[in-house]
């Protein structure tokens, strides 16, 4: 069933008058600066709008409705309390530029959030400003550049990035004016240390690493890697995409990382919102602390205030119009307080238990782990190379068929170096029976692939649409509706 566009519900003159003021005046705008033709916005009743968007919402999979094992995205339960308390009216109505005196309650939460994040990451200082993981990465690499520049080593502009890295890593390097030096992973999933040793040199700014890596395994020789990079004068950057795997178990600061970003919308359970908002707080070691992005919450004599350029003259500057994604940070704060001290390491423990259990069950069911010798971290990779070759049913086909069985698909075709891969991250908030249901579905799809491959290749059948014509979408661009 196609759902009409909101514009197709419009009737000229229909409007929701309870929602805006009646005015008798006209706009006081000089003729040449005035709008002549009204924008094409919907002309619908409030009920029509409510019904339309409620119906659209029902055309989504979400954590609240479906198991959503999207690898590298940490789709765990988003406690409702975090939303409700972050949306208390006093918090919502406060203007970001209102005096600090009007925001002491809010600032206290932010200050305590900074302290808790320092503790769980082992970093010296934290800034909450970056608005998503990629902006956190940007802040991190910009700080590394600023650090080298402060030591008269501006020429250090090479960033070492493993081949399995997220696309944001090399994209960030470019945005910071750095060159990317890619190094390979070994068949075991670890980084090739010899290649790393060859890659470092006098122009090395640092290395960007995720640990556990995007291959779903812990980088066991992290200390040797830290030494190689540090000896070469570079810094270690930790991409916190996979922090859920090690929360409370290992701290990036203790592994030797100088700069990290955290994805609060992953590890600390703030909502993903259909593509954001996120929050990409950054943490640093003492030598990088002077370069943190602004603002940061400071505490003096039991009162809180935003630090400015005067407090941190070497800062890389500001990355947002105000204070970053304040309301997201509030949700992360509430979540961390509800987990408490003991709850932090439980996150990693049960995320690992769920991932290793799923891996073991799928392996027993005949699926091929990409790294069979390794423990799963909080996620793992299944490769469907064999199915693609023997049955002509690939990872995309399995993913689409899973939707029919009521499961959101895992991440597909990432990391790129594992062919026909499914990157599966169950998170700690899923119950055993839901994991079992997912395994049963994959077993059933495998059986279908063996007996009726066309059925799997034609999936999905039960969703609002079947497979979409992406080529047409890109070639016959239709990006806005015209009546």
């Amino acid at each position, binding site marked *: 069933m*196609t759902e009409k*566009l*909101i514009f197709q519900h419009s009737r000229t003159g229909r409007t929701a008058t309870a*929602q*805006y*003021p009646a*005015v008798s005046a006209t706009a*006081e705008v*000089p003729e040449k600066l005035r*709008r002549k033709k009204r*924008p094409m916005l919907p002309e619908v009743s409030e009920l029509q709008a409510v019904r339309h*968007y409620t119906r659209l919402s029902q*055309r989504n*999979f979400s954590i609240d409705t479906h198991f*959503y094992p999207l690898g590298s995205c940490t789709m765990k339960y988003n406690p409702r309390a975090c939303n409700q308390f972050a949306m208390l009216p006093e918090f*919502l109505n*406060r203007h*970001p530029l209102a005096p600090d005196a*009007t925001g002491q309650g809010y600032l206290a939460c932010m200050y305590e959030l900074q302290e808790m994040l320092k*503790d769980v990451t082992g970093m010296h200082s934290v800034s909450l400003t970056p*608005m*998503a993981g990629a902006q956190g*990465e940007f802040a991190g690499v*910009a700080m590394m550049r600023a650090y080298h520049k402060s030591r008269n080593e501006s020429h250090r502009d090479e960033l070492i990035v493993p081949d399995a890295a*997220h*696309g944001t890593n090399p*994209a960030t390097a470019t945005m910071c004016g750095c060159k990317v030096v890619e190094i390979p992973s070994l068949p075991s999933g670890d980084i090739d240390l010899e290649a790393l040793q060859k890659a470092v040199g006098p122009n090395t700014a640092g290395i960007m690493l995720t640990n556990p890596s995007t291959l779903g395994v812990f980088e066991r020789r992290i200390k040797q890697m830290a030494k190689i990079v540090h000896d070469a004068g570079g810094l270690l950057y930790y991409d916190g995409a996979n922090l859920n795997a090690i929360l409370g178990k*290992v701290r990036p600061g203790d*592994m030797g990382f100088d700069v990290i970003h955290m*994805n609060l919308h992953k590890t600390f359970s703030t*909502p993903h*919102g*259909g593509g*954001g908002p996120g929050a990409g707080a950054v943490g640093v070691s003492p030598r990088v602390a002077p370069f943190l992005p602004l603002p940061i919450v400071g505490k003096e004599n039991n009162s809180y205030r935003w630090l400015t350029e005067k407090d941190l003259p070497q800062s890389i500057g*500001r990355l947002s*119009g*105000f204070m970053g*994604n*304040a309301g997201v940070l509030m949700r992360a704060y*509430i979540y961390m*307080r509800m987990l*408490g001290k*003991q*709850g932090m390491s439980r996150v*990693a423990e049960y995320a690992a*238990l769920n991932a*290793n*259990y799923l891996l073991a069950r799928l392996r027993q069911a005949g699926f091929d782990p990409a790294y069979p010798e390794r*423990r799963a971290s909080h996620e793992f990779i299944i490769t469907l190379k064999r199915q693609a070759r023997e049955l002509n049913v690939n990872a995309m086909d399995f993913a689409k068929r899973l939707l029919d069985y009521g499961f959101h698909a895992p*991440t597909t075709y990432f990391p790129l170096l594992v062919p026909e891969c499914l990157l599966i991250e169950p998170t*700690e*908030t899923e*119950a055993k029976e839901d994991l079992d249901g997912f395994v049963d579905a994959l077993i059933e799809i495998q059986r279908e692939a063996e007996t009726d491959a066309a059925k799997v290749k034609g999936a999905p059948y039960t*969703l609002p*649409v079947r497979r*979409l014509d992406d080529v047409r*979408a890109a070639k016959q661009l239709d*990006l*806005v*509706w015209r009546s």
Partner: protein
Amino acid sequence: MPFIPHTEDDVREMLAVIGAPDINTLFEEIPADLRAQGLTQVPDALTEMQIGQLMQRRAAQDGTYLNFIGAGAYQHHIPAAVWAIVTRGEFYSAYTPYQAEASQGTLQLLYEYQTMMASLTGMEVSNASLYDGASALSEACLMAVRANRKSQSAKFLLPSNVNPTYCKVAKAIAGNQNLQFETIHFDASGLVTLDALKQYATDDITALVIQQPNFFGQLEDVDALTDWAHAKGAMVIAVVNPTSLAILKPPGEWGSAGKGADIVVGDGQPLGVPLASGGPYFGFITTRMEYVRQMPGRIIGRTVDMEGRQGFTLTLQAREQHIRRGKATSNICTNQGLLVTAATIYMAITGATGLENIAIMSQQRCKELVESLTAIKGVKAAFTGSRFHEAVILLERNVGEVLSTLLKHGIVGGYDISAHYPKLGNALLVCTTEMNSSEDIAAYAKALAEILND
């Protein structure tokens, strides 16, 4: 265990399947000397009731004030239906619509959003959001370097009456790729004039940035500025307030030939997003079709499925980091989807008529405020021309001190811009929306008069 469903039986059975004696064994690949010791700064867990009580106390501590600050974030009425729908789990707890078939709700909404923003700004295409208005300006500058093939300089003209934080952010973000920003000064009316641009007549300029209304709330002569830029091969990047576009000429029609601005950005916060101490908001960016491949961020396209039915999907992904990696148009991945959801529902409910009335009322209230305040001895308006809903007020006293005293009257009286613009003197940027009643304005004027006559 908060949010962890496992029973002891579950754990036992799962470990048996894994073949591990206990959960800690699962971490055996981590070198022993790296294992974390206990945490010291994370307190013991709170129940939902306890954290609720704590947050209520903290919220009460922050209190409630009459607000007259704008400066890039604006308090508008938000229909109750907006956040009731936004916080439905199906929107709230979904992610980027990678599996299009299982995300048609989010995708169709984003397509509708793109349509609304393109129409509001008078442009042809929109993306699905950037982080906020400030970072959107940075992205627009980086985009202009790619899109303006006539220019080799990566040099931008950035008037000082563009939001000063936006300027700082542009330098912090885009400065890393060696973009240069030349500051253009405003005249006695608070506006950018052709005279101020004259010295760049023969320079290679990638783009001129124009904020309308500018940071002071004044209306720029956008046609003349656009013509000047286009005549010399520079692009025009418009920074706009979406509410104002209900009554102001859309950037897509700027210039005497109506060719329009090339890239339009701004903060979408006024469209149904609460102030909330600074975020999350969202940035918007719209442009002409010819530049769509240079635009950063997610873009949604309408297409058909294998049975010919209408469907929506992420498109032009070859611009993005997960495909293009180091050669992507931006490193942006997660954007501000949920806030776009709010804005789309907000625009659907208010419609063009509602948005227009909100804009007119905001402007009327500002006029009322300026008249009330400047009737007080020692208070005058810095500039006289046409405004939208903000104005710069000059005082004879230190602005910070006056604002502190106003706070004791329960009034957040505006944003002190004296430090940003020392030449203006004791300058206060004030703002009104439809939320500031005539009574609020009278209360503000009365309090200010008392303070200044002390």
